[in-house]
């Protein structure tokens, strides 16, 4: 093997990776925050409105879930500005795309979560005289969040991995940083030997933290 490992160049450019990791996490956080709002709103709309509304929501969900993320990324960044007089930078474009993307998955998660609330619990809430809005805020939401917490954790970690697609728009997240070092130093093995554990460890730390959170909030 005529390859000599040289990690020095990696450490020299390490900030690109660490800041890239930070950006990846930020992107995922913003996307899931917006996605939760979209998902909750649509889940509630879905069960309270008629067939037309439900049809549109289903179309949105099915479209996003069956089309590759990278196509959506290109579509939003390159395609939409040709239709509408909007200009945005790559990061904003990606955040919008990933938020809409996560929203579609979260609608399903919230719908399942709401359906999983035992009917008797709602009976008990009705029995003490709470109004529909009160039932929603004080019983349905808290119970549903505890039910869906594991799914939310998994979704967040998925989104964190999906931020790697942002690299195609030259958004300086972790994968872009890895590719930059790759192209500028040719230290492929080293850079991915460093970046792979970065993704793995971050993923496990998030998972561990979220599992702790789940145990705090266990239902029943």
């Amino acid at each position, binding site marked *: 093997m005529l390859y000599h490992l040289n990690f020095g160049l990696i450490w020299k450019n390490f900030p690109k990776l660490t800041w890239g990791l930070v950006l990846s996490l930020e992107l995922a956080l913003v996307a899931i925050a917006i996605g939760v709002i979209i998902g909750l709103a649509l889940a509630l709309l879905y069960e309270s409105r008629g067939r037309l509304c439900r049809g549109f929501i289903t179309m949105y969900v099915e479209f996003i879930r069956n089309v590759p993320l990278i196509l959506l990324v290109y579509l939003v960044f390159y395609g939409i500005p040709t239709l509408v007089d909007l200009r945005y930078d790559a990061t904003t474009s990606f955040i919008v795309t990933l938020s809409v993307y996560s929203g579609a998955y979260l609608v399903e998660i919230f719908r399942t979560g709401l359906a999983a609330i035992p009917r008797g619990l709602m009976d008990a809430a*009705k029995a003490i*005289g709470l109004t*529909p809005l009160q039932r929603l805020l004080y019983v349905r939401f808290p*119970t549903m969040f505890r039910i869906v917490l594991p799914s939310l954790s998994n979704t967040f970690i998925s989104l964190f991995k999906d931020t790697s697609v942002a690299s195609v728009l030259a958004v300086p997240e972790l994968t872009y940083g890895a590719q930059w070092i790759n192209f500028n130093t040719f230290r492929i093995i080293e850079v991915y030997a460093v970046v792979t554990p970065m993704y793995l460890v971050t993923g496990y730390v998030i998972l561990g933290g979220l599992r702790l959170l789940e145990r705090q909030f266990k239902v029943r």
Partner: protein
Amino acid sequence: MPISASSATAPDGGPAPVVRIRGLKKSFGTTVVLDGIDLDVHRGEVVSIIGPSGGGKTTLLRCVNVLEIYDEGSVQIDGVEVGFTDSSGTRRKRTERDLAHHRAETGMVFQLFYLFPHLTAAENIMLGLRKVRGFSKAEARSIAERWLDRVGLTAKADSLPSQLSGGQQQRVGIARAVAMEPKVLLLDEITSALDPELVGEVLAVVRKLAEDGMTMMVVTHEMAFAREVSSRVVFIDAGRIAVEGKPKDVFQKQSNERLRSFLSRVSHDPGLK
């Protein structure tokens, strides 16, 4: 919209019943579950409702606090029809908000407890007090603590339901319903899901409530309890009241054939023969 307590009097001149049910009918799809129920429950009375499964006992209770909307007939609490309004002569179903107000006047305890899992015992009781009755947090807390004391669970005020035994959860369920000071308390087979050794503590609480004058409608399989605590026993079979009367009369005379076969199937208590 406040529910006006009626000062109407019954035909015999006495105070009107808290709960007056007339001609109650309810079907689920093609299955007729309640086929014309007439029942009065007076203040301070404990009415036990017994009967075979599927006979409509639970549905009857759920019509009283309108968890089910009945099809025909009338259910009045203190003279006010709970399920429908009668504006300008046409009978219209009440809105959800309206129903919520009516439900605040009844209390229900469920077979499977259905405590709110994300709230402590005290918070379970406080939720209705704060959001429906409008008490402040401090006031609600003190009321909740008082009721927890009465059901013997002061030490568990800040425990989550998952940390409580079945019997303890059910006692919290009772406290949650009673703290709202309902006009009538509806108990739906509240000991059926409990381990035998936990049943006693729950029945003790109910007995005490009855002694203190709580108006109750109790669906139960605990015949000894029904006999001991009720003012009246009602036997429902196939959607109708087949037998009604004082406990002694119902259990000892056993005038009805179906009642006899039901009792022999259900009870292992030789004292009921």
